[in-house]
């Protein structure tokens, strides 16, 4: 047995944790259940490391191993194995899922302290990690889809974890329903793939993708992109992500920042040969949707006052960057940004959770301020995340964002310009968050705060070590994560070399002079610094009046427009469909039954009960038959 066969252990360990916790989680209680879940996720991380080491040991051309656990389906010509694919792409994903997952499990032990549903939270969390690993490690589209639906279900369960509050329950439903629209795209793409190629295995589908007609390839790629739009919160399906912040903060960090929402980017990277085979406008659609989403979400984030909603819109915006990269053929940059984003955004979500924890569940940034001195570890780590996302060199976000902008520039200066404006806005709104929360005057003790609860003045305190340790680790990763793929010449393109066998030359090669490269990088860094300085003048020195139009605070009224439409004309449309269903569809079914019943009623009358009428029938029948035979004999 090869070491690589151990890949099945990676999802199996969190599954085992899930099963044990379902059985005895409640009895184990706090904090043993949490430690058990953390151990399950941590051992999955170790298993991934073992597989990773084995994969590194192979030749670059042979870094691809499929291990079939058992046959899942065999119907006619349709065969599906429950198989796992270990290649550089899937293992990269698995590494950061299990790694960040373990840190967030650890953090949750501290964060969920005292919650009556403590063990249930870890049940869901382990189930989520299992589903996410199935998604990335599946060797065919159906196993990926299994994980895809699994993470959707876990997202629903965890967003509405505190379901006794109405808003949380409806946020969960919103996430689930919006994702269903995307799932339609994924499923249709699978049907189309099977109809065209006759298999769902990645090894078969991707190998034979170059034989596809461009129109088919474009259709499959764009339908998969519809799925990715749902899962990764792109226009027009992003509305669920800001509301999903109703869940516990570790969930926002794990599911709605680091892992699940990036699965759309993973999927598009996985099927890069299909994208390469489609018409050129196919990937361009993806790039434009990505960059428009990035700008759109960044403008909304500028005016949000809830700390978690700022981060949520920021996540939507950063995911837009990743799709911009996918659309311009910069798959390595997309994965690179995904990893660095997972580091710094998980860090900032956990940091905001730490702030909420210290502020006794206060999430409004207008009631914070000056927390730097009271929560030093949270503040310092948060600042590292802020510098990373703002694109300040040498933090990780600078390198990955710069690479995406470089490819965008090569594709079209318009894409680059929008990306650059977004980078400036990103630096601006993140600085606004930092200055409002950690700098300036403390605002939590003012009259408003007192009037709210009438309780003793709030005393923000630093969180326990269980919560600060993951913050420190993630801050370290956010600081040095850029080292994965430095843009200098030579052997420092680690990630690019590592992913090369997966992308099989589908990565676009760009030819840009070194001077232009450096120039673009400097402009990007200056944009980031410009955003920070602007925010400092507005929110720190208060020299400029803050510009926060109401329309931005309400998210361009996008969400409310949808709600209004769905509540008004949409509702009428659905009512019409329901009426059609009741009258036409049900009417047809009931009509057939009614016709049979009516016919029976009529035919029953033939049974008169009069013996003589039966006799007459027999006599007439005999005469008729006789006449028939005699006339035939006469001929």
């Amino acid at each position, binding site marked *: 047995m090869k070491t690589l066969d151990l890949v099945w252990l990676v999802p199996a360990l969190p599954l085992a944790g899930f099963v044990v916790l379902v059985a005895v989680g409640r009895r184990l209680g706090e904090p043993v259940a949490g430690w058990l879940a953390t151990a399950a996720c941590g051992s999955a991380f170790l298993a991934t490391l073992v597989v990773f080491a084995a994969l590194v040991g192979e030749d670059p051309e042979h870094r691809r191993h499929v291990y079939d656990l058992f046959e899942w389906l065999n119907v006619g010509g349709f065969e599906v194995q429950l198989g796992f694919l270990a290649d550089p792409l899937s293992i990269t994903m698995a590494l950061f899922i299990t790694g960040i997952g373990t840190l967030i499990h650890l953090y949750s032990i501290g964060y969920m302290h005292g919650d009556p549903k403590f063990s249930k939270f870890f049940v869901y969390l382990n189930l989520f990690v299992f589903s996410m690993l199935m998604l990335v490690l599946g060797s065919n589209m159906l196993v990926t889809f299994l994980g895809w639906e699994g993470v959707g279900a876990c997202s629903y369960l965890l967003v509405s974890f505190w379901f006794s509050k109405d808003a949380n329950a409806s946020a969960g439903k919103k996430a689930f329903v919006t994702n269903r629209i995307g799932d339609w795209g994924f499923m249709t793409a699978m049907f189309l793939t099977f109809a065209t190629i006759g298999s769902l295995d990645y090894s078969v589908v991707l190998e034979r993708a170059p034989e596809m007609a461009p129109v088919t390839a474009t259709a499959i790629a764009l339908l998969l992109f519809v799925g990715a739009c749902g899962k990764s919160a792109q226009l027009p399906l992003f509305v669920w992500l800001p509301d999903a912040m109703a869940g516990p903060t570790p969930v926002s960090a794990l599911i709605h920042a680091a892992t699940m929402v990036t699965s759309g980017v993973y999927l598009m990277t996985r099927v890069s040969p299909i994208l390469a085979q489609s018409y050129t406008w196919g990937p361009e659609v993806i790039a434009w949707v990505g960059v428009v989403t990035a700008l759109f979400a960044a403008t909304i984030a500028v005016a949000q006052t809830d700390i978690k909603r700022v981060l949520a819109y920021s996540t939507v915006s950063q995911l837009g960057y990743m799709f911009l990269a996918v659309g311009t053929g910069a798959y390595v940059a997309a994965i690179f940004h995904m990893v660095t984003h997972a580091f710094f955004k998980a860090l900032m979500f956990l940091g905001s959770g730490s702030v909420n924890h210290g502020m006794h569940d206060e999430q409004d940034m207008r009631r914070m301020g000056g927390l730097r001195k009271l929560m030093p570890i949270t503040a310092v780590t948060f600042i590292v995340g802020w510098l990373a996302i703002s694109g300040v060199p040498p933090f990780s976000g600078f390198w990955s964002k710069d690479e995406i902008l470089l490819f965008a520039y090569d594709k079209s200066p318009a894409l680059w310009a929008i990306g650059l404006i977004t980078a400036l806005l990103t630096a601006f709104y993140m600085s606004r968050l930092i200055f409002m929360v950690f700098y300036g005057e403390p605002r939590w003790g003012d009259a408003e705060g007192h009037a709210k609860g009438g309780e003793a003045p709030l005393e923000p305190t630093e969180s326990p070590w269980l919560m600060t340790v993951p913050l420190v680790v993630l801050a370290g990763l956010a600081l040095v994560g850029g080292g994965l793929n430095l843009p200098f010449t030579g052997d420092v393109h680690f990630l690019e070399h590592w992913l090369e066998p997966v992308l099989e030359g589908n990565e676009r090669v760009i030819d840009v002079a070194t001077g232009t490269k450096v120039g673009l990088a400097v402009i990007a860094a200056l944009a980031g610094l410009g955003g920070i300085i602007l925010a400092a003048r507005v929110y720190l020195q208060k020299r400029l009046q803050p510009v926060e139009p109401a329309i931005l605070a309400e998210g361009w009224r996008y969400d409310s427009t949808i709600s209004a439409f769905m509540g008004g004309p949409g509702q009428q449309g659905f009512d019409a469909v329901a009426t059609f269903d009741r009258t036409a569809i049900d009417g047809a079914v009931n009509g057939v039954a009614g016709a049979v019943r009516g016919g029976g009623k009529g035919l029953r*009358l033939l*049974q*008169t*009960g*009069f*013996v*003589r009428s039966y006799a007459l029938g027999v*006599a007439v029948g005999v005469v008729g038959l006789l006449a028939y035979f005699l006339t035939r004999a006469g001929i």
Partner: protein
Amino acid sequence: MIAIAEVTPAWYLVLGAILFSIGTVGLLVRRNPLVMFMCIELMLNAVTLTFVTFSRMLHDVNGQSVVVFVLVVAAAEVVVGLGIIVALLRKQPTATADDLNVLRG
């Protein structure tokens, strides 16, 4: 001289047909169960007569053996049918066949 026509098998067939028709019409127009029953017997016997005639015409003994079967069936039928009719008339002496309509649909 009175020409006495020769009796041919056709006469028997005609007689059988007349008897059968009388039986059929009687069955259709009468309401008294006992009379209807007699009409059925008449039809049965008309058929029997036809069988015998054909047996003679075709020199085939099978026709006569069928007659024996018909007689056996008729005897059995009389037992059952008369039993029912007697039971019915005992209960309601003026009953006609049209009163037996419990099986109406």
